[in-house]
């Protein structure tokens, strides 16, 4: 099969990894917006209250909708009931996985860890490997060959995006990895970012996942029905639509290989229900620039830094339209990116690495 010479290799074990390191894009210093230290400290303050409240609301509504879904099983009403259950299972599963993984959602460390482990299973992301994958995503955000969490490459692979509506791309990849982990092995990509000291933990977590999944399968066989799996395990797939809709707004259509989150990350205004489901991750530029600020303080952080950032997308719908239009353009022109003007009050964009006292890096030219 002839390969396209312009197509980049997005794997983190390929030649782009080396190239990024040579260009100074790996483990580099990133731009941060100027926020007074005192104010930042206030915003970074940890609390248990909001996350405990939100966790009760989440599990409470899951139980309620689950009960309705159970009672409608065998009728057509089960379709919308389980759809709501699945969305409520997977969408907060994704955002709770994320926030608790950062250890910022709760003040109390064990609470973050418990919810992290539960949510990781709910979205079928092996807890320890994904902790390290996400650390790399923060170190090298959308740096080709370095970031393992780039949703799709340029030109986009539509098949992956469409399959992800039901988690049918990432899900099977992850299940394959779980099987490898159960037998004490890792795939090549994981070895890039998981340190050897974490292998044992990875393998034991996979054995717990396998135990739960096999338990659900056994329950299905015992009851002669897929109903048990409709509550645990299958929602990770059938409930995935909102996860991918939120997820593609984070970085797609924007720059690759830059060291300024204002260029590669998007903040989107969302309604309170979406913000609850997403735990304010719609303030994504803010989160990437200051990952120590907990989710409940992100709206305030946004107020502190919006004078230094491009305008936020006005709604989820607007962001999705922008993303899809950019992906369509990138099909023929992979170099296409959305250029977003900064307000007059902002500092200029930082595209590349900073040399000592070098103003050249702080330009409005484009990165290659």
């Amino acid at each position, binding site marked *: 099969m002839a390969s396209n010479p312009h197509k980049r290799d997005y794997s983190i074990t390929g030649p782009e990894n080396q190239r990024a390191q040579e260009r100074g894009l790996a*483990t580099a210093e990133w731009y941060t917006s100027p926020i007074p230290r005192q104010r930042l*400290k206030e915003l*970074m303050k*940890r609390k248990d209250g909001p996350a405990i409240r939100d966790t009760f609301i989440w599990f409470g509504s899951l139980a309620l909708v689950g009960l309705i879904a159970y009672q409608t099983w065998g009728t057509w009403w089960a379709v919308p009931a389980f759809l709501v259950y699945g969305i409520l299972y997977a969408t907060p599963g994704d955002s709770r996985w994320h926030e608790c993984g*950062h*250890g*910022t959602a709760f003040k109390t*460390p064990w609470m973050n860890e418990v919810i992290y482990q539960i949510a990781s299973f709910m979205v079928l992301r092996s807890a*320890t490997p994904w*902790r*390290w994958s996400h*650390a790399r995503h*923060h*170190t090298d955000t959308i740096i080709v060959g370095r970031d393992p969490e780039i949703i799709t490459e340029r030109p986009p692979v539509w098949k992956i995006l469409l399959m992800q509506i039901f988690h049918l791309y990432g899900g099977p990849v992850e299940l394959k990895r779980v099987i490898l982990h159960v037998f004490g092995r890792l795939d090549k990509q994981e070895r890039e970012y998981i*340190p050897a*000291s*974490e292998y044992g933990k990875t393998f034991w977590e996979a054995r717990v996942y396998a135990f739960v999944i096999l338990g659900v399968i056994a329950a299905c066989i015992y009851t002669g029905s897929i109903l048990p799996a409709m509550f645990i395990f299958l929602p990770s797939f059938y409930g995935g639509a909102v996860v991918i809709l939120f997820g593609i707004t984070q970085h797609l259509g924007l720059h690759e290989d830059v060291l300024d989150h204002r260029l590669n990350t998007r903040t989107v205004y969302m309604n309170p229900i979406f913000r609850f489901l997403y735990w304010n991750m719609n303030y994504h530029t803010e989160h990437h620039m*200051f*990952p*120590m600020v907990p989710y409940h303080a992100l709206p305030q952080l946004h107020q502190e830094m919006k004078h230094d950032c491009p305008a936020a997308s006005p709604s989820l719908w607007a962001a999705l339209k922008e993303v899809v239009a950019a992906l369509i353009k990138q099909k023929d022109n992979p170099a296409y990116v959305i250029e977003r003007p900064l307000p007059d009050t902002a500092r200029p964009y930082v595209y590349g690495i900073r040399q000592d006292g070098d103003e050249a890096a702080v330009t409005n030219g484009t990165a290659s």
Partner: protein
Amino acid sequence: MSIAQWVEACAAEEIEVEDVIRFDYGDRTFAIYRTENSKYYASDGYCTHEPVHLADGLVMGDVIECPKHNGRFDIPTGAAKRRPVCIALKTYPVKIEEGKVLIQID
């Protein structure tokens, strides 16, 4: 073999309770902490996970959280407390004399 020496880092008042500042000495960088109970400590200034300044982090009680990936260290001992940090921080003795923070570096 280098000989340990006491070096003046800053005025004790310069660091707020539950805060951390950066102190550069020669080509080395340290982090000086004042914890919740107003005790002073010092460690290497960079996180052991990646070269990020801990002085940009958050002091919570006796713990410092790194600004990059939220890894945590125990300030008095330097022990790694939360992934992704696995390697302990090197710590240095600290004393307060005449309102100054002195750290002993080797």
